[in-house]
Protein backbone atom coordinates (compact mmCIF):
# COMPACT_ATOMS: atom_id res chain seq x y z
CA UNK A 1 0.00 0.00 0.00
CA UNK A 2 0.97 3.56 -0.65
CA UNK A 3 -0.51 6.97 -0.04
CA UNK A 4 -0.71 8.58 -3.47
CA UNK A 5 -1.89 11.81 -5.01
CA UNK A 6 -3.56 10.55 -8.16
CA UNK A 7 -5.03 12.43 -11.08
CA UNK A 8 -8.66 11.95 -12.03
CA UNK A 9 -8.85 10.77 -15.64
CA UNK A 10 -12.65 10.63 -15.78
CA UNK A 11 -15.66 10.90 -13.46
CA UNK A 12 -18.94 10.17 -15.17
CA UNK A 13 -22.47 9.47 -14.01
CA UNK A 14 -23.48 6.03 -15.28
CA UNK A 15 -27.12 6.12 -14.26
CA UNK A 16 -29.14 7.91 -11.57
CA UNK A 17 -26.68 8.65 -8.74
CA UNK A 18 -24.06 6.05 -9.70
CA UNK A 19 -20.67 7.27 -10.86
CA UNK A 20 -17.57 5.70 -12.30
CA UNK A 21 -14.22 7.41 -11.67
CA UNK A 22 -10.91 6.59 -13.27
CA UNK A 23 -7.67 7.41 -11.45
CA UNK A 24 -4.27 7.52 -13.08
CA UNK A 25 -1.77 5.40 -11.18
CA UNK A 26 0.56 2.83 -12.62
CA UNK A 27 1.25 1.65 -9.08
CA UNK A 28 -2.41 0.92 -8.31
CA UNK A 29 -2.88 -0.67 -11.73
CA UNK A 30 0.04 -2.98 -11.05
CA UNK A 31 -0.73 -3.86 -7.46
CA UNK A 32 -4.55 -3.98 -7.14
CA UNK A 33 -6.21 -7.37 -6.94
CA UNK A 34 -9.95 -7.97 -7.36
CA UNK A 35 -11.70 -7.44 -4.03
CA UNK A 36 -9.12 -5.00 -2.65
CA UNK A 37 -10.09 -1.41 -1.95
CA UNK A 38 -8.71 2.11 -1.70
CA UNK A 39 -9.31 4.77 0.97
CA UNK A 40 -10.19 8.10 -0.62
CA UNK A 41 -9.94 11.53 0.95
CA UNK A 42 -13.05 13.30 -0.35
CA UNK A 43 -12.18 16.78 0.94
CA UNK A 44 -8.93 18.50 1.83
CA UNK A 45 -10.49 20.34 4.76
CA UNK A 46 -12.85 19.07 7.46
CA UNK A 47 -15.96 18.99 5.29
CA UNK A 48 -15.57 15.25 5.51
CA UNK A 49 -12.91 14.09 7.92
CA UNK A 50 -12.53 10.36 7.42
CA UNK A 51 -11.54 8.68 4.21
CA UNK A 52 -14.15 6.65 2.33
CA UNK A 53 -13.39 3.08 1.24
CA UNK A 54 -14.18 2.02 -2.35
CA UNK A 55 -13.59 -1.36 -3.92
CA UNK A 56 -11.38 -1.53 -6.99
CA UNK A 57 -13.96 -1.66 -9.78
CA UNK A 58 -11.67 -2.24 -12.73
CA UNK A 59 -7.96 -2.34 -13.38
CA UNK A 60 -7.13 -0.51 -16.62
CA UNK A 61 -3.92 0.44 -18.39
CA UNK A 62 -2.13 2.94 -16.16
CA UNK A 63 -4.84 3.18 -13.55
CA UNK A 64 -7.89 1.87 -11.78
CA UNK A 65 -11.57 2.70 -11.61
CA UNK A 66 -13.98 2.94 -8.73
CA UNK A 67 -17.75 2.83 -8.92
CA UNK A 68 -19.71 4.74 -6.30
CA UNK A 69 -23.23 5.75 -5.44
CA UNK A 70 -23.88 9.24 -4.09
CA UNK A 71 -25.27 8.52 -0.64
CA UNK A 72 -23.81 11.25 1.58
CA UNK A 73 -21.49 14.21 1.82
CA UNK A 74 -18.31 12.30 0.91
CA UNK A 75 -19.66 10.76 -2.29
CA UNK A 76 -21.42 14.03 -3.16
CA UNK A 77 -18.08 15.86 -3.01
CA UNK A 78 -16.50 13.09 -5.05
CA UNK A 79 -19.16 13.38 -7.75
CA UNK A 80 -18.24 17.07 -8.20
CA UNK A 81 -14.59 16.38 -8.94
CA UNK A 82 -13.39 17.27 -12.42
CA UNK A 83 -11.04 15.60 -14.86
CA UNK A 84 -7.50 16.65 -13.98
CA UNK A 85 -8.29 17.20 -10.27
CA UNK A 86 -6.06 15.38 -7.86
CA UNK A 87 -7.27 12.82 -5.37
CA UNK A 88 -5.44 11.59 -2.26
CA UNK A 89 -5.85 7.82 -1.97
CA UNK A 90 -4.31 5.00 0.05
CA UNK A 91 -4.19 1.57 -1.47
CA UNK A 92 -4.49 -1.11 -2.46
CA UNK A 93 -5.83 -2.31 0.90
CA UNK A 94 -7.25 -5.50 2.34
CA UNK A 95 -7.46 -9.05 1.10
CA UNK A 96 -9.24 -9.68 -2.16
CA UNK A 97 -11.01 -12.65 -3.71
CA UNK A 98 -9.24 -15.98 -3.81
CA UNK A 99 -9.44 -17.26 -7.35
CA UNK A 100 -10.64 -20.84 -7.38
CA UNK A 101 -9.14 -23.21 -9.96
CA UNK A 102 -10.53 -22.69 -13.43
CA UNK A 103 -12.96 -25.56 -13.53
CA UNK A 104 -16.69 -25.58 -13.00
CA UNK A 105 -18.76 -22.43 -13.00
CA UNK A 106 -18.17 -19.09 -11.35
CA UNK A 107 -21.38 -17.57 -10.10
CA UNK A 108 -21.26 -13.85 -9.40
CA UNK A 109 -24.06 -12.33 -7.31
CA UNK A 110 -24.25 -8.53 -7.19
CA UNK A 111 -26.78 -6.45 -5.28
CA UNK A 112 -27.07 -2.73 -6.07
CA UNK A 113 -23.69 -1.00 -5.97
CA UNK A 114 -22.20 -4.34 -4.87
CA UNK A 115 -21.41 -4.72 -8.57
CA UNK A 116 -18.38 -2.49 -8.00
CA UNK A 117 -15.64 -5.01 -7.06
CA UNK A 118 -17.17 -7.85 -9.08
CA UNK A 119 -16.35 -6.43 -12.50
CA UNK A 120 -12.64 -6.48 -11.62
CA UNK A 121 -13.10 -10.07 -10.48
CA UNK A 122 -14.83 -11.19 -13.69
CA UNK A 123 -12.18 -9.48 -15.81
CA UNK A 124 -9.53 -11.40 -13.90
CA UNK A 125 -11.46 -14.69 -14.24
CA UNK A 126 -11.85 -14.19 -17.97
CA UNK A 127 -8.17 -13.33 -18.24
CA UNK A 128 -7.48 -16.66 -16.50
CA UNK A 129 -9.47 -18.45 -19.25
CA UNK A 130 -12.37 -19.16 -16.92
CA UNK A 131 -15.44 -20.41 -18.77
CA UNK A 132 -19.00 -20.66 -17.47
CA UNK A 133 -19.30 -17.34 -15.71
CA UNK A 134 -22.79 -16.44 -14.58
CA UNK A 135 -23.45 -12.90 -13.36
CA UNK A 136 -26.62 -12.25 -11.40
CA UNK A 137 -27.41 -8.58 -10.92
CA UNK A 138 -30.16 -7.45 -8.59
CA UNK A 139 -31.34 -3.89 -8.07
CA UNK A 140 -34.32 -1.82 -6.95
CA UNK A 141 -35.36 -0.95 -10.51
CA UNK A 142 -34.07 -0.87 -14.09
CA UNK A 143 -32.22 2.43 -13.54
CA UNK A 144 -30.06 0.84 -10.88
CA UNK A 145 -28.82 -2.06 -13.00
CA UNK A 146 -25.10 -1.51 -13.43
CA UNK A 147 -22.47 -2.93 -15.79
CA UNK A 148 -24.77 -5.34 -17.66
CA UNK A 149 -23.05 -4.62 -20.99
CA UNK A 150 -19.55 -4.87 -19.54
CA UNK A 151 -20.28 -8.34 -18.17
CA UNK A 152 -21.87 -9.44 -21.44
CA UNK A 153 -18.86 -8.21 -23.42
CA UNK A 154 -16.68 -10.40 -21.21
CA UNK A 155 -18.73 -13.40 -22.27
CA UNK A 156 -20.58 -13.90 -19.00
CA UNK A 157 -24.18 -15.08 -18.92
CA UNK A 158 -26.03 -12.21 -17.26
CA UNK A 159 -29.28 -12.52 -15.34
CA UNK A 160 -31.19 -9.55 -13.99
CA UNK A 161 -33.80 -9.12 -11.35
CA UNK A 162 -35.42 -5.95 -10.03
CA UNK A 163 -37.56 -5.50 -6.96
CA UNK A 164 -40.25 -3.70 -8.99
CA UNK A 165 -40.03 -5.96 -12.03
CA UNK A 166 -39.04 -3.07 -14.34
CA UNK A 167 -36.20 -5.18 -15.75
CA UNK A 168 -35.54 -8.92 -15.73
CA UNK A 169 -37.26 -11.09 -13.22
CA UNK A 170 -39.32 -9.43 -10.46
CA UNK A 171 -38.09 -10.04 -6.94
CA UNK A 172 -34.81 -10.62 -5.20
CA UNK A 173 -31.64 -11.74 -6.91
CA UNK A 174 -31.32 -14.56 -4.40
CA UNK A 175 -34.39 -16.20 -5.99
CA UNK A 176 -32.55 -16.12 -9.32
CA UNK A 177 -29.59 -17.79 -7.64
CA UNK A 178 -31.77 -20.61 -6.32
CA UNK A 179 -33.34 -21.24 -9.71
CA UNK A 180 -29.97 -21.11 -11.47
CA UNK A 181 -28.49 -23.66 -9.09
CA UNK A 182 -31.45 -26.00 -9.55
CA UNK A 183 -30.93 -26.08 -13.32
CA UNK A 184 -27.14 -26.16 -13.42
CA UNK A 185 -25.07 -29.21 -14.11
CA UNK A 186 -21.58 -27.95 -14.85
CA UNK A 187 -19.82 -29.40 -11.84
CA UNK A 188 -18.17 -27.71 -8.90
CA UNK A 189 -18.84 -24.01 -8.75
CA UNK A 190 -17.75 -21.04 -6.73
CA UNK A 191 -20.04 -18.21 -5.66
CA UNK A 192 -18.67 -14.67 -5.31
CA UNK A 193 -21.06 -12.10 -3.85
CA UNK A 194 -21.15 -8.44 -2.91
CA UNK A 195 -24.15 -6.37 -1.88
CA UNK A 196 -26.35 -5.51 1.10
CA UNK A 197 -25.79 -7.56 4.27
CA UNK A 198 -29.27 -9.09 4.05
CA UNK A 199 -28.61 -10.36 0.54
CA UNK A 200 -25.21 -11.75 1.46
CA UNK A 201 -26.69 -13.69 4.34
CA UNK A 202 -29.24 -15.37 2.07
CA UNK A 203 -26.55 -16.11 -0.53
CA UNK A 204 -24.40 -17.65 2.21
CA UNK A 205 -27.31 -19.84 3.35
CA UNK A 206 -27.98 -21.06 -0.17
CA UNK A 207 -24.28 -21.78 -0.74
CA UNK A 208 -24.06 -23.68 2.51
CA UNK A 209 -27.16 -25.74 1.70
CA UNK A 210 -25.81 -26.60 -1.75
CA UNK A 211 -22.26 -27.19 -0.48
CA UNK A 212 -20.80 -24.58 -2.82
CA UNK A 213 -17.77 -22.56 -1.72
CA UNK A 214 -18.78 -18.93 -1.36
CA UNK A 215 -16.78 -15.73 -0.90
CA UNK A 216 -18.46 -12.50 0.13
CA UNK A 217 -17.10 -8.97 0.06
CA UNK A 218 -18.31 -6.98 3.07
CA UNK A 219 -18.90 -3.30 3.63
CA UNK A 220 -18.46 -1.55 6.98
CA UNK A 221 -17.86 1.98 8.24
CA UNK A 222 -14.11 2.51 8.51
CA UNK A 223 -11.68 5.00 9.91
CA UNK A 224 -8.04 4.01 9.30
CA UNK A 225 -8.50 1.28 6.65
CA UNK A 226 -5.22 -0.41 7.61
CA UNK A 227 -6.11 -2.42 10.75
CA UNK A 228 -4.98 0.06 13.37
CA UNK A 229 -8.18 1.54 14.80
CA UNK A 230 -10.30 -1.63 15.06
CA UNK A 231 -13.28 0.35 13.83
CA UNK A 232 -14.74 -2.09 11.27
CA UNK A 233 -15.44 -5.41 13.01
CA UNK A 234 -17.27 -8.42 11.60
CA UNK A 235 -18.36 -11.39 13.69
CA UNK A 236 -16.41 -14.52 12.80
CA UNK A 237 -17.41 -17.96 14.11
CA UNK A 238 -14.96 -19.38 16.61
CA UNK A 239 -14.55 -21.90 19.36
CA UNK A 240 -11.96 -19.67 20.89
CA UNK A 241 -11.89 -19.34 24.67
CA UNK A 242 -11.74 -15.90 26.22
CA UNK A 243 -9.92 -15.55 29.52
CA UNK A 244 -12.60 -13.49 31.24
CA UNK A 245 -10.81 -13.55 34.58
CA UNK A 246 -7.81 -15.31 36.03
CA UNK A 247 -9.99 -18.28 36.94
CA UNK A 248 -12.58 -18.29 34.24
CA UNK A 249 -12.21 -19.31 30.62
CA UNK A 250 -15.33 -18.47 28.69
CA UNK A 251 -16.34 -20.12 25.44
CA UNK A 252 -17.41 -17.70 22.79
CA UNK A 253 -19.37 -18.34 19.63
CA UNK A 254 -17.72 -15.51 17.72
CA UNK A 255 -14.74 -13.20 17.65
CA UNK A 256 -14.27 -9.96 15.78
CA UNK A 257 -12.08 -9.63 12.74
CA UNK A 258 -11.55 -6.41 10.83
CA UNK A 259 -13.18 -5.86 7.45
CA UNK A 260 -10.32 -3.58 6.35
CA UNK A 261 -7.42 -5.88 7.14
CA UNK A 262 -8.74 -9.44 7.44
CA UNK A 263 -11.24 -8.78 4.61
CA UNK A 264 -13.11 -7.22 2.96
CA UNK A 265 -13.50 -10.64 1.30
CA UNK A 266 -14.32 -13.53 3.63
CA UNK A 267 -15.38 -17.12 3.15
CA UNK A 268 -19.12 -17.02 3.78
CA UNK A 269 -18.96 -19.97 6.17
CA UNK A 270 -16.54 -18.12 8.48
CA UNK A 271 -19.02 -15.37 9.26
CA UNK A 272 -21.38 -15.54 12.25
CA UNK A 273 -24.34 -14.11 10.31
Amino acid at each position, binding site marked *: *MKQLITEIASNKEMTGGFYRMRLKSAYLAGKSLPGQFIEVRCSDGYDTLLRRPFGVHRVVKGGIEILYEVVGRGTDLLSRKKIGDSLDVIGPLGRGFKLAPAKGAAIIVAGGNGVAPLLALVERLVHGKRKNIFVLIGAKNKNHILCRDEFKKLGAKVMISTEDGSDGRRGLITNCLSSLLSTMDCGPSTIYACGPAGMLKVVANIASREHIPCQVSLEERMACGV*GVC*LGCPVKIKTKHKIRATKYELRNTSYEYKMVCKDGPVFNAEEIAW
Partner: protein
Amino acid sequence: MVDLSVNIGQLKLKNPVMAASGTFGPEYRELIDINSLGAIILKTVTLNERSGNPPPRVAETESGMLNSIGLENKGFADFAKNKISKLRGIKIPVIASIAGDNEKEYGMLAAKMDRLGPKIDAIEINLSCPNVRHGRREGLIAQDEAATRQVLRAARRSTRLPLIAKLAPNVTNITNIAVAAAKGGADAVLVSNTFQAMAVDIETRMPKLGNITGGLSGPAIKPVVLKMVWDLYNSIDLPIIGCGGIMDYKDAAEFMICGASAIQVGTATFANPRAATDIVKSLKGYMTKNGYKKLNEFTGKLKTGAL
Protein backbone atom coordinates in the same frame (compact mmCIF):
# COMPACT_ATOMS: atom_id res chain seq x y z
CA MET B 1 19.07 24.81 13.71
CA VAL B 2 16.04 24.61 15.93
CA ASP B 3 15.89 22.20 18.85
CA LEU B 4 12.57 20.38 19.20
CA SER B 5 13.59 18.14 22.08
CA VAL B 6 11.57 18.07 25.27
CA ASN B 7 11.59 16.07 28.49
CA ILE B 8 8.40 14.74 30.02
CA GLY B 9 9.68 13.84 33.48
CA GLN B 10 12.38 11.24 32.83
CA LEU B 11 11.14 10.61 29.31
CA LYS B 12 13.33 12.28 26.70
CA LEU B 13 11.70 13.06 23.36
CA LYS B 14 13.51 14.38 20.30
CA ASN B 15 10.36 16.28 19.39
CA PRO B 16 6.99 16.90 21.05
CA VAL B 17 4.80 15.08 18.50
CA MET B 18 3.39 11.73 19.58
CA ALA B 19 0.93 9.38 17.91
CA ALA B 20 -2.10 8.82 20.15
CA SER B 21 -3.20 5.47 21.53
CA GLY B 22 -5.65 3.50 19.41
CA THR B 23 -4.94 5.51 16.28
CA PHE B 24 -1.50 4.29 15.41
CA GLY B 25 0.53 1.14 15.02
CA PRO B 26 3.43 -0.43 13.18
CA GLU B 27 1.02 -0.93 10.25
CA TYR B 28 1.79 2.68 9.31
CA ARG B 29 5.44 1.74 8.74
CA GLU B 30 4.69 1.32 5.03
CA LEU B 31 3.29 4.84 4.74
CA ILE B 32 5.47 7.06 6.94
CA ASP B 33 8.82 7.24 8.73
CA ILE B 34 7.67 6.39 12.24
CA ASN B 35 11.13 7.18 13.65
CA SER B 36 10.70 10.86 12.82
CA LEU B 37 8.04 11.17 15.54
CA GLY B 38 8.67 12.00 19.19
CA ALA B 39 7.04 8.83 20.52
CA ILE B 40 4.20 6.43 19.83
CA ILE B 41 1.54 5.27 22.26
CA LEU B 42 0.28 1.74 21.72
CA LYS B 43 -3.34 0.61 21.84
CA THR B 44 -4.60 0.18 25.41
CA VAL B 45 -3.95 -3.25 26.91
CA THR B 46 -6.05 -4.88 29.63
CA LEU B 47 -5.09 -7.88 31.78
CA ASN B 48 -7.52 -10.19 30.03
CA GLU B 49 -8.89 -10.29 26.52
CA ARG B 50 -11.73 -7.91 25.63
CA SER B 51 -13.77 -8.44 22.49
CA GLY B 52 -14.86 -4.81 22.14
CA ASN B 53 -18.19 -3.29 21.17
CA PRO B 54 -20.58 -4.32 18.39
CA PRO B 55 -20.48 -2.48 15.04
CA PRO B 56 -20.84 0.17 13.83
CA ARG B 57 -17.89 1.38 15.88
CA VAL B 58 -17.16 4.61 14.03
CA ALA B 59 -19.33 7.41 12.69
CA GLU B 60 -18.44 10.75 11.21
CA THR B 61 -19.92 13.94 12.67
CA GLU B 62 -19.39 17.60 11.80
CA SER B 63 -15.63 18.18 11.92
CA GLY B 64 -15.24 15.15 14.10
CA MET B 65 -15.77 11.46 14.54
CA LEU B 66 -17.36 9.17 17.09
CA ASN B 67 -15.84 5.88 18.09
CA SER B 68 -16.91 3.10 20.39
CA ILE B 69 -14.21 0.49 19.90
CA GLY B 70 -14.50 -0.65 23.53
CA LEU B 71 -10.83 -1.39 24.22
CA GLU B 72 -10.75 -4.48 22.02
CA ASN B 73 -7.46 -6.22 22.74
CA LYS B 74 -6.19 -9.74 23.32
CA GLY B 75 -4.89 -9.09 26.82
CA PHE B 76 -1.43 -8.64 28.29
CA ALA B 77 -0.09 -12.14 27.56
CA ASP B 78 -0.73 -11.74 23.83
CA PHE B 79 0.68 -8.21 23.95
CA ALA B 80 3.96 -9.44 25.45
CA LYS B 81 4.16 -12.40 23.09
CA ASN B 82 2.97 -11.01 19.77
CA LYS B 83 2.69 -7.23 19.78
CA ILE B 84 6.08 -6.22 21.11
CA SER B 85 7.93 -8.14 18.38
CA LYS B 86 6.14 -6.08 15.71
CA LEU B 87 7.87 -2.95 17.00
CA ARG B 88 11.24 -4.02 15.61
CA GLY B 89 12.97 -1.13 13.91
CA ILE B 90 11.14 1.51 15.94
CA LYS B 91 13.89 3.52 17.61
CA ILE B 92 11.78 6.23 19.25
CA PRO B 93 10.24 5.88 22.72
CA VAL B 94 7.34 3.44 22.87
CA ILE B 95 4.67 4.15 25.45
CA ALA B 96 2.31 1.39 26.55
CA SER B 97 -1.27 2.24 27.49
CA ILE B 98 -3.03 0.26 30.21
CA ALA B 99 -6.56 0.06 31.62
CA GLY B 100 -8.16 -2.04 34.34
CA ASP B 101 -11.28 -2.41 36.42
CA ASN B 102 -9.65 -1.25 39.65
CA GLU B 103 -6.37 -0.01 41.10
CA LYS B 104 -5.16 -3.56 41.69
CA GLU B 105 -5.38 -4.37 37.98
CA TYR B 106 -3.60 -1.14 37.06
CA GLY B 107 -0.86 -2.03 39.54
CA MET B 108 -0.47 -5.52 38.10
CA LEU B 109 -0.36 -4.24 34.53
CA ALA B 110 2.18 -1.56 35.39
CA ALA B 111 4.38 -4.22 37.01
CA LYS B 112 4.07 -6.46 33.95
CA MET B 113 4.94 -3.60 31.59
CA ASP B 114 7.90 -2.75 33.80
CA ARG B 115 9.20 -6.30 33.40
CA LEU B 116 9.17 -5.94 29.59
CA GLY B 117 12.36 -3.99 30.24
CA PRO B 118 13.77 -1.58 27.70
CA LYS B 119 11.03 -2.24 25.15
CA ILE B 120 8.61 0.05 26.97
CA ASP B 121 9.77 3.59 27.80
CA ALA B 122 6.74 4.91 29.67
CA ILE B 123 3.19 3.97 30.61
CA GLU B 124 0.05 5.88 29.79
CA ILE B 125 -2.62 5.24 32.38
CA ASN B 126 -5.94 5.23 30.55
CA LEU B 127 -8.42 6.41 33.18
CA SER B 128 -10.95 7.70 30.74
CA CYS B 129 -12.12 5.41 27.95
CA PRO B 130 -15.76 6.45 27.49
CA ASN B 131 -16.71 3.11 25.93
CA VAL B 132 -16.15 0.66 28.77
CA ARG B 133 -17.17 0.27 32.37
CA HIS B 134 -14.47 -0.11 34.96
CA GLY B 135 -15.83 -3.07 36.92
CA ARG B 136 -18.95 -2.05 38.86
CA ARG B 137 -17.99 1.62 38.91
CA GLU B 138 -20.46 4.25 37.78
CA GLY B 139 -18.65 6.68 35.53
CA LEU B 140 -14.98 6.89 34.66
CA ILE B 141 -12.00 6.64 36.99
CA ALA B 142 -10.93 10.04 35.69
CA GLN B 143 -14.22 11.49 36.99
CA ASP B 144 -13.32 10.56 40.56
CA GLU B 145 -10.43 12.24 42.37
CA ALA B 146 -9.95 9.49 44.95
CA ALA B 147 -10.00 6.72 42.34
CA THR B 148 -7.59 8.62 40.10
CA ARG B 149 -5.15 9.04 42.99
CA GLN B 150 -5.45 5.37 44.00
CA VAL B 151 -4.91 4.06 40.49
CA LEU B 152 -1.85 6.24 39.95
CA ARG B 153 -0.47 5.22 43.34
CA ALA B 154 -0.93 1.53 42.55
CA ALA B 155 0.89 1.97 39.23
CA ARG B 156 3.59 4.12 40.82
CA ARG B 157 4.35 1.41 43.38
CA SER B 158 4.82 -1.12 40.57
CA THR B 159 7.21 0.71 38.30
CA ARG B 160 9.73 3.48 37.98
CA LEU B 161 8.76 4.11 34.36
CA PRO B 162 7.33 7.56 33.65
CA LEU B 163 3.54 7.56 34.11
CA ILE B 164 1.21 9.66 32.01
CA ALA B 165 -2.35 10.02 33.33
CA LYS B 166 -4.87 10.19 30.47
CA LEU B 167 -7.75 12.32 31.75
CA ALA B 168 -11.38 12.62 30.72
CA PRO B 169 -12.77 15.92 29.45
CA ASN B 170 -16.22 15.26 30.92
CA VAL B 171 -15.50 16.67 34.37
CA THR B 172 -16.53 19.73 36.37
CA ASN B 173 -13.00 20.72 37.28
CA ILE B 174 -10.08 19.24 35.36
CA THR B 175 -7.56 20.73 37.80
CA ASN B 176 -8.86 18.72 40.74
CA ILE B 177 -8.43 15.48 38.81
CA ALA B 178 -4.98 16.46 37.57
CA VAL B 179 -3.91 17.30 41.13
CA ALA B 180 -5.18 13.88 42.26
CA ALA B 181 -3.13 12.23 39.49
CA ALA B 182 -0.07 14.21 40.58
CA LYS B 183 -0.55 13.17 44.22
CA GLY B 184 -0.78 9.57 43.09
CA GLY B 185 2.57 9.84 41.34
CA ALA B 186 1.87 10.81 37.73
CA ASP B 187 4.79 12.34 35.84
CA ALA B 188 2.54 14.08 33.33
CA VAL B 189 -1.12 14.54 32.49
CA LEU B 190 -2.62 14.04 29.08
CA VAL B 191 -5.70 16.07 28.23
CA SER B 192 -7.74 14.63 26.99
CA ASN B 193 -9.51 11.47 25.96
CA THR B 194 -12.61 11.76 23.75
CA PHE B 195 -15.83 13.48 24.82
CA GLN B 196 -18.81 11.26 25.59
CA ALA B 197 -21.13 11.75 22.66
CA MET B 198 -23.67 10.20 20.31
CA ALA B 199 -25.38 10.62 16.94
CA VAL B 200 -28.68 9.33 15.57
CA ASP B 201 -29.99 8.40 12.13
CA ILE B 202 -33.38 10.14 12.14
CA GLU B 203 -34.89 7.93 9.42
CA THR B 204 -34.23 4.64 11.17
CA ARG B 205 -34.21 6.26 14.67
CA MET B 206 -31.15 4.12 15.35
CA PRO B 207 -27.98 5.34 17.02
CA LYS B 208 -25.08 5.64 14.60
CA LEU B 209 -22.94 3.52 16.95
CA GLY B 210 -23.63 -0.08 17.94
CA ASN B 211 -22.78 0.84 21.52
CA ILE B 212 -25.33 3.73 21.30
CA THR B 213 -22.83 6.22 22.75
CA GLY B 214 -19.16 6.76 22.10
CA GLY B 215 -16.37 9.29 22.21
CA LEU B 216 -16.05 12.41 20.07
CA SER B 217 -12.66 13.42 18.65
CA GLY B 218 -11.36 15.63 15.87
CA PRO B 219 -11.31 19.36 15.13
CA ALA B 220 -14.74 19.79 16.76
CA ILE B 221 -13.26 19.38 20.26
CA LYS B 222 -10.04 21.36 19.83
CA PRO B 223 -11.05 24.72 21.35
CA VAL B 224 -12.57 23.01 24.39
CA VAL B 225 -9.48 20.92 25.11
CA LEU B 226 -7.25 23.91 24.48
CA LYS B 227 -9.00 25.76 27.30
CA MET B 228 -8.43 22.82 29.63
CA VAL B 229 -4.72 22.86 28.80
CA TRP B 230 -4.61 26.58 29.58
CA ASP B 231 -6.44 26.05 32.89
CA LEU B 232 -4.05 23.27 33.87
CA TYR B 233 -0.98 25.24 32.86
CA ASN B 234 -2.06 27.91 35.33
CA SER B 235 -2.80 25.53 38.17
CA ILE B 236 -0.44 22.53 38.22
CA ASP B 237 3.30 21.96 37.97
CA LEU B 238 3.26 18.70 36.01
CA PRO B 239 4.06 18.64 32.30
CA ILE B 240 0.88 18.70 30.21
CA ILE B 241 0.41 16.75 27.00
CA GLY B 242 -2.28 18.23 24.78
CA CYS B 243 -4.50 16.02 22.64
CA GLY B 244 -7.74 16.94 20.91
CA GLY B 245 -8.35 17.69 17.26
CA ILE B 246 -4.75 18.54 16.39
CA MET B 247 -4.68 18.35 12.59
CA ASP B 248 -1.63 20.42 11.66
CA TYR B 249 1.33 22.37 13.07
CA LYS B 250 -0.88 25.41 13.74
CA ASP B 251 -3.07 23.40 16.09
CA ALA B 252 0.05 21.93 17.69
CA ALA B 253 1.59 25.38 18.20
CA GLU B 254 -1.69 26.67 19.68
CA PHE B 255 -1.65 23.89 22.28
CA MET B 256 1.98 24.54 23.10
CA ILE B 257 1.50 28.29 23.46
CA CYS B 258 -1.27 27.47 25.95
CA GLY B 259 1.15 25.35 27.97
CA ALA B 260 1.37 21.88 26.46
CA SER B 261 4.91 20.49 26.67
CA ALA B 262 4.05 17.92 24.01
CA ILE B 263 1.06 16.97 21.89
CA GLN B 264 -0.61 13.86 20.55
CA VAL B 265 -2.10 13.38 17.11
CA GLY B 266 -4.95 10.89 16.76
CA THR B 267 -7.94 11.39 14.48
CA ALA B 268 -5.85 13.42 12.01
CA THR B 269 -3.86 10.29 11.18
CA PHE B 270 -7.00 8.61 9.82
CA ALA B 271 -7.57 11.53 7.44
CA ASN B 272 -3.90 11.75 6.56
CA PRO B 273 -1.38 9.19 7.81
CA ARG B 274 1.32 11.83 7.28
CA ALA B 275 -0.35 14.29 9.66
CA ALA B 276 1.96 13.68 12.63
CA THR B 277 5.20 13.54 10.65
CA ASP B 278 4.13 16.66 8.71
CA ILE B 279 3.60 18.46 12.04
CA VAL B 280 7.19 17.68 13.06
CA LYS B 281 8.51 19.22 9.83
CA SER B 282 6.20 22.24 9.86
CA LEU B 283 6.85 22.96 13.53
CA LYS B 284 10.50 23.43 12.63
CA GLY B 285 9.45 25.91 9.95
CA TYR B 286 7.21 27.76 12.40
CA MET B 287 10.06 28.05 14.91
CA THR B 288 12.56 29.23 12.31
CA LYS B 289 10.13 31.83 10.99
CA ASN B 290 9.49 33.18 14.48
CA GLY B 291 13.09 33.02 15.64
CA TYR B 292 12.54 30.35 18.31
CA LYS B 293 15.49 28.07 18.93
CA LYS B 294 13.91 25.94 21.63
CA LEU B 295 10.36 24.88 22.43
CA ASN B 296 10.34 26.62 25.80
CA GLU B 297 10.65 29.96 24.02
CA PHE B 298 6.97 29.68 23.13
CA THR B 299 5.57 26.85 25.26
CA GLY B 300 3.20 28.44 27.79
CA LYS B 301 4.06 31.90 26.48
CA LEU B 302 0.50 33.04 25.74
CA LYS B 303 0.43 36.84 25.71
CA THR B 304 -2.39 37.89 27.99
CA GLY B 305 -1.63 41.59 28.41
CA ALA B 306 -3.77 44.37 26.92
CA LEU B 307 -4.61 43.62 23.31
